[in-house]
């Protein structure tokens, strides 16, 4: 009996093990060849091609630490889960190259921990609490919580992605770092860290620098009591660098006595180092107090300067060199150079040759130069006669006004791998009037569109439809300048001449469209791409902005002298034809477009020069009052190029960067929105130049889970709760009762039949 039982056990066990092994093999194969189905409508959990490419090319692991509040605001209840979803997706798609951890911060966490986070630039995010999520919502307070990711790659300084929010309401759409941009933010952080990751050691760096490094070493006679040989140690370190550099590094030593020397010479004293120990003033032994001493390095390289101070703790030459290293790296790192081609200045503001022309774009050019952190230079095409090839990006204002030879130079720069941003301008108006009240109409002017520019653009597959577009939501305020006081006085008229770019108008997935929401585009016209031509030219098009709002074509009453009525009413059927298919009547000033208007696009790839074959190199135009320039190339076939892929970004409005049109806005709008958004356009273009194809291929935004639309009343909520929780049990009860009744009836009928049968 036992043997038989054992036989069955063995047989069963054997068969079970065999089946298990077979299924394990199937599972192993399934693991090796697994397929993935993203069932979301917008494929939000599928990484973009750019992200996958980037992860494939990484040589170091990426570590992401997400710091999140244990008790987030009620509105952010999904935040941690949403971030985890994204990180999980990145981790699983990265083949182990990205690892993440989530660290919850609670109120009970020690102060030291919070201070430690502050040091690493991890601060609480602050949410504005409002009475609702719609436009009518009012502010009712603030709430702070942690939601920051720290990204580490190789040995580079970690990048902190601050204030990560999930998209809950309209307010969140204007925030920079969100769950739906997290994939891009992390990839961009990695790109940044990768590009600045490998830092050359200082001793090697001083040997390979193109320009010499100069150091001025200010040292006190008295060094701190804790480190009396500090001055000698620093000097020894500097001597080491001199020996290593092969003449590329020089230093001067200057002894400073109690700061008096610099004060006497009228130089600033921003770098006084203080110790708090009680000590004796050598000039006055009776005086006691804090000791002041200098151990300051002023490092100069290629016209830039940086200071290193606070050497108090360094006791060896190596420690001194380690301390200096980041400062020297910062000073000598490769810079992004933006070149700008400005349109010629008007005759009354003409500047001397070689001087930056005083156009309406010049104030913004100066602002970019001061604020964007890039090196900015005016490209004087007429003076230099070529575009410097070390530019990261060339910005061209109103290219439609350039001479043929200037355009030829830009064309060559583009074909040789340049990155060009062109801001075209189809229309303009003089919004400023001096000393008089303007009429009821605003005079408009079509900006000249040179034939050679049109031909050049058409060759690339781009055409500009010079019909002025009007946006219902846009505005431009004409103003007048009072002749006596010179004060600017706004005229209370708001003309819808600037289309406002809404988030829905932007290609949210394109890196070129980052942060452009709210951008005003004055006097915008339409770009008409010819896809067949673009494809034939071997270029790739990525649209940036297509206006989808109620956009209208402006129909001037007199095409020869177009004027815009300041009292134009966009709601008046007498002036507006809303049917895009209808033929507008004579009195109609506006005709609805009825389709999105493309106003900004990017082309990428290997550009072929327009000036090939029969087209000869055009001559430089002669400047008024100057002798015709010597031009051996003019009329000759174009010299050979060194072809490289480049990019061209086209905007059909330059007005948002034109100071002339900014006066119509209030100062806060200009300071907080217009200028920063305008600068974002440069930043996007410059980043493309810096980080190349890896950056362009990234997807800026992924989709988000759909949310409940509209208000949910308490009654509606309760009703659905009831339906979901109690609906089915009630239905089942009703079904059960009904079935029982039917059965009872059947039983009765059966019994009755039995009874009657019995009687018969």
């Amino acid at each position: 009996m036992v043997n038989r039982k054992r036989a069955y056990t063995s047989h069963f066990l054997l068969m079970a093990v065999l089946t298990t092994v077979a299924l394990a093999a199937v599972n192993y194969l399934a693991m090796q060849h697994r397929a993935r189905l993203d069932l979301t409508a917008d494929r939000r959990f599928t990484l973009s091609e750019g992200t996958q490419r980037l992860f494939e090319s990484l040589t170091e692991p990426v570590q992401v630490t997400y710091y999140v509040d244990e008790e987030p605001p009620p509105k952010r209840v999904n935040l941690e889960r949403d971030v985890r979803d994204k990180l999980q997706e990145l981790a699983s798609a990265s083949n182990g190259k990205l690892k993440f951890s989530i660290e919850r911060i609670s109120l009970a966490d020690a102060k030291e921990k919070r201070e430690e986070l502050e040091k690493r630039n991890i601060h609480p995010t602050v949410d504005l609490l409002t009475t609702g999520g719609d436009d009518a919502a009012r502010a009712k307070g603030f709430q702070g919580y942690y939601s920051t990711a720290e990204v580490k790659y190789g040995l580079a300084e970690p990048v902190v992605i601050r204030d990560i929010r999930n998209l809950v309401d309209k307010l969140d759409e204007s925030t920079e770092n969100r769950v739906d941009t997290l994939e891009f933010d992390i990839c961009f952080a990695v790109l940044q860290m990768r590009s600045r990751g490998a830092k050359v050691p200082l001793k090697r760096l001083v040997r390979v620098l193109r320009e010499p490094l100069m150091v001025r070493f200010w040292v006190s006679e008295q060094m701190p009591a804790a480190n009396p040989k500090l001055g000698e140690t620093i000097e020894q370190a500097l001597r080491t660098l001199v020996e290593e550099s092969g003449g590329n590094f020089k230093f001067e030593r200057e002894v400073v006595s109690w700061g008096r020397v610099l004060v006497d010479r009228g130089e600033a004293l921003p770098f006084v180092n203080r110790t708090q120990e009680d000590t004796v003033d050598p000039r006055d032994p009776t005086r006691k107090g804090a000791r002041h001493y200098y151990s300051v390095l002023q490092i100069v390289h290629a016209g830039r300067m940086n200071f290193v101070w606070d050497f108090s703790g360094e006791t060896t030459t190596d420690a001194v060199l380690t301390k200096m290293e980041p400062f020297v790296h910062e000073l000598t790192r490769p810079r992004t150079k933006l070149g700008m081609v400005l349109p010629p200045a008007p005759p009354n503001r003409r500047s001397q040759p070689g001087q930056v022309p005083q156009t309406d774009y010049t104030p913004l050019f100066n602002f970019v130069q001061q604020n964007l952190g890039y090196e900015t230079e005016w490209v004087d095409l007429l003076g230099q006669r070529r575009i410097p090839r070390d530019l990261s990006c060339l910005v061209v204002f109103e290219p439609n006004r350039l001479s043929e030879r200037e355009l030829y130079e830009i064309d060559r720069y583009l074909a040789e791998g340049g990155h060009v941003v062109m801001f075209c301008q189809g229309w303009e108006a003089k919004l400023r009037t001096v000393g008089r009240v303007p009429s009821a109409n605003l005079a408009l002017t079509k900006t000249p569109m040179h034939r050679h520019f049109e031909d050049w653009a058409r060759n690339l597959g781009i055409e500009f439809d010079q019909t002025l577009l009007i946006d219902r939501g846009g505005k431009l305020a004409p103003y007048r300048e009072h002749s006596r006081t010179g004060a600017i006085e706004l005229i209370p008229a708001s003309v819808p001449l600037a289309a406002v770019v809404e988030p829905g108008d932007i290609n949210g997935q394109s890196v070129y469209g980052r942060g452009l929401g709210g951008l005003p585009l004055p006097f915008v016209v339409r770009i008409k791409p010819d896809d067949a031509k673009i494809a034939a030219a071997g270029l790739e098009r990525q649209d940036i902005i297509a206006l989808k709002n109620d956009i209208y074509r402006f129909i001037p009453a007199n095409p020869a002298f177009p004027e815009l009525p300041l009292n134009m009413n966009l709601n008046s059927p007498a002036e507006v034809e809303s049917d895009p298919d209808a033929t507008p009547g004579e009195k109609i000033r506006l005709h609805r477009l009825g389709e999105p208007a493309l106003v900004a696009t990017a082309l990428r790839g290997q550009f072929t020069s327009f000036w090939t074959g029969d087209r000869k190199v055009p001559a430089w135009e002669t400047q008024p009052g100057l002798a015709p320039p010597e031009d051996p190339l003019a009329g000759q076939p174009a010299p050979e190029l060194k072809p490289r892929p480049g990019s061209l970004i086209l905007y059909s409005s330059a007005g948002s960067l034109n100071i002339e049109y900014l006066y119509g806005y209030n100062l806060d709008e200009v300071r907080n929105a217009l200028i920063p958004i305008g600068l974002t356009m440069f930043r996007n273009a410059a980043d493309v130049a810096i980080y190349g194809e890896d950056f362009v291929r990234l997807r800026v935004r992924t989709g988000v889970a759909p949310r409940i639309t509209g208000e949910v009343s308490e009654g509606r909520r309760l009703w659905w709760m009831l339906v979901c929780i109690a609906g089915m049990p009630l239905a089942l009860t009703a079904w059960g009762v009904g079935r029982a009744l039917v059965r009872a009836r059947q039983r009765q009928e059966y019994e009755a039949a039995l009874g009657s049968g019995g009687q018969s």
Partner: protein
Amino acid sequence: MIAIFRREMRGYFDSLMGVGVIGAFVVLMMLLSLLLDPLNQGGDWFKRGELSMRTFFGVFPWVAAVVVPAVSMRLWAEDRRQATFELLMTLPIPTWQVALGKYLAGLVFLAAMLAGTAAFPLMLANFGQPDWGPVLGGYVACFLLGAAFLAIGMFLSGLTENQALAFFVAMLVCLGLVGLGELRTFFGDLARARPTAALVHLTSLPVVGLAVLAAAVSRDKAVGAGSVAVGLAVNALTYLFDDQPSPPKSEAVVAALGQISVLDHFREIERGVVYTNGLVFIASLVVLFVVLNVWSLESRRHS
């Protein structure tokens, strides 16, 4: 097979128990996913504002691990109790057809249970435009997981005539399968520190489990106790040897754990992403336990 299927269907829907299970399942699922949301710090579904069934699919494995054994417990144990088991076994049809008929009836009942929650997607449609892909994918995954639990429950039901015991053991096995995913971090750490020990634990678990099941099938206590003792001894012995960290071994263990972790697969499905290997694993559970069930019945038939 069809006759068996019909008989079982009548058994489910003519009894109060079947209707009660559907009602209880629906109420429990809705309370957990709409009001309590225990896996996401609690809270009202409406306050989250997200038009999705993530909370529902998130709690489903745990609820199914308790409710589905209640459905499956009667599949064989009821026949044993009513002494119709012998009749079924002597019918002139193959055992696999009997087992499959019963299993298909269980699947239809499972589908009816899931259909009972249709008010949730209806509510989604009422409050906006939901993303239907993850909802449909989630339901398919729920059905598959329920099918796997049903197969486990049916197999265990075939080993005993005590329905309560069948329910309890099946519930423990199903909860164990779900909970295994929660141990992933612990196993991951162990795999990194002592890869061989982790590998032994991971491989001995199904081997000892199958040995115990085999012993249960043939009611051979000695084999059952012996395999547990050997399993424990082997696992304990691994700690006596020096175990050097080995990244390939650790990665293999972690990957294998990921593959057998129902909860991990469900977390992906919950947000709308389906990996085919997850579906293959769940389908493998169905095949394994239905086949084991047929063999265990065959062994009874001939014993």
